[in-house]
């Protein structure tokens, strides 16, 4: 349902995405992996049109994002839930209001009571109901991330994008969140999840498809099994977590 065709993006002289092609299938959990600075977050921002490619096209649900105006893009994004890498909670709203925000703004047609009920529901889902009245400045990094997750889930979007959902969490919470991602996706066969991650173990356990970015391109796209059996030396090196090998570190 999401296609990248020859997408390139350059910052200054640094070509982050270079003729990238990829396909994210509807109804599946797709992991995007790659080393730090490889352009994973940049890829995610292209999916929702927060960044526009220098060359190439991004197609979502058959629509070329490049052909949309700002207003149409805003409308299209209501189908997405996004967990940002830094959580990006609104500092001027408390936890509960942050989670309520997409429900109120997207006019889901719910009554006030139902919206608040839904916000409490998702906060409970990630065990954060106890901090509902705190402001983001008073939360730890991991807590912010969990609230960000609740905010992404609250409006029940059709596509969920998670940018490193478990980075900065202890193993128990990590596992809880990995499970949650699977549960949420299993809830609706049309639900599409894209997870950006460093966590290979989680990727092997929960991904249905894995895409690996390297030097601005997708060097591998397949099931965890294909990933494990890949003979590509860069994939093998990443998988083994070795410093020595063909992979270039800037």
């Amino acid at each position, binding site marked *: 349902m999401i296609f990248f065709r020859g997408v390139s993006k350059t910052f200054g002289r640094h070509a982050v995405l270079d003729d990238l092609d990829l396909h994210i299938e509807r109804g599946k959990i797709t992991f995007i992996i790659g080393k730090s600075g490889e352009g994973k977050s940049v890829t995610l*921002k292209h999916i*929702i049109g*927060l960044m526009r490619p220098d060359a190439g096209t991004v197609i979502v649900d058959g629509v070329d994002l490049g052909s949309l105006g*700002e*207003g149409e*893009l*805003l*409308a*299209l*994004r*209501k189908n*997405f839930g*996004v967990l*940002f890498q*830094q959580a*990006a*909670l*609104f*500092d001027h709203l408390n936890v509960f209001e942050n989670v309520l*925000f*997409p429900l109120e*703004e*997207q006019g889901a047609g719910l009554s006030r009571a139902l919206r608040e009920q839904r916000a409490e529901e998702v906060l409970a889902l990630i065990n954060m109901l106890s901090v509902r009245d705190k402001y983001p400045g008073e939360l730890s990094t991991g807590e912010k991330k969990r609230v960000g997750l609740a905010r992404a889930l609250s*409006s029940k979007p059709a596509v969920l994008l998670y940018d490193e959902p478990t980075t900065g969490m202890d193993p128990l919470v990590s596992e809880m969140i990995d499970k949650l991602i699977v549960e949420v996706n299993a809830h609706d066969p049309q639900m599409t999840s894209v997870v950006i991650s460093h966590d290979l173990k989680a990727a092997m356990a929960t991904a249905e498809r894995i895409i690996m970015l390297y030097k601005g391109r997708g060097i591998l796209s397949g099931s965890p099994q294909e990933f494990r059996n890949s003979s590509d030396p860069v994939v093998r090196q990443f998988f083994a977590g070795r410093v020595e090998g063909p992979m270039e570190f800037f």
Partner: protein
Amino acid sequence: MRALPLLSSIHRLVAYLGRLAVELPRQVGLFMLFLGEIFRQLLRRPFRLGSIIKHAEAMGNHSLAIICLTALSTGGVFALQMAGLFKVFSAENMVGGATGLALTTELAPLIGGFVLAGRVGSAMCAEIATMVVREQIDAMEAMGVSPIHYLVVPRLIAAAVVMPLLIGIFMVVGMLGAYSVSIFLFEVDQGIFLEKLVALVGHNEVIKGLRKMFVFALIITVVSCRYGLQAEKGAKGVGVATTNAVIAALLGILFADFVISYMQLRWSL
């Protein structure tokens, strides 16, 4: 060898002018688009009354004291200068009228506008720039919400209402300063002071001043929000954006002041 630095400066100047010739129309065009977008969002629902009231209250609370202080000293000092001047012609009695006229039509909106650009405009810009740097604007857009509708429009409406009110207070407090100086330092007769004031300053003058401030309020808000939204990501982004926003707002106010004053004189608007 001596010619080389000169040549290279000329070269740099030409390059700079060339860049300016390309960049300036582009920036002007982008600014026009921004204005158009604000206007479009102004008409869109929902009407964020709660947010407007919150911003109006914050603007008033944060700047009332500094506005009063500035007004008191502006009115006082201006009366002092006028009294010194009028004394030469034994016309101290005119101080009330002269100060009143200057204060309502020019000093209150201009100096008050500067104070509000520094106090309210900079805070507005810093707040929005911080949201840009922390990706909160990205998050907002990712949820399908227009930052112009959510952030800029309520601030614009609040400023358009509250800032002229503050300038009204500036006028009153400024006159209080002028009154004190005239009566206590120059022993001007109270009755004559007020008589000349009422003779020269009618509600037309007050409206002229408030109308100016209404325009300045729009300039302060639009410029501050624009610089805030354009902030560069990174540690220095907020500071740079805020400094530039205040400078641009001040220049905008000076320019608009000239244009409005000219129109008022020319066509007695």
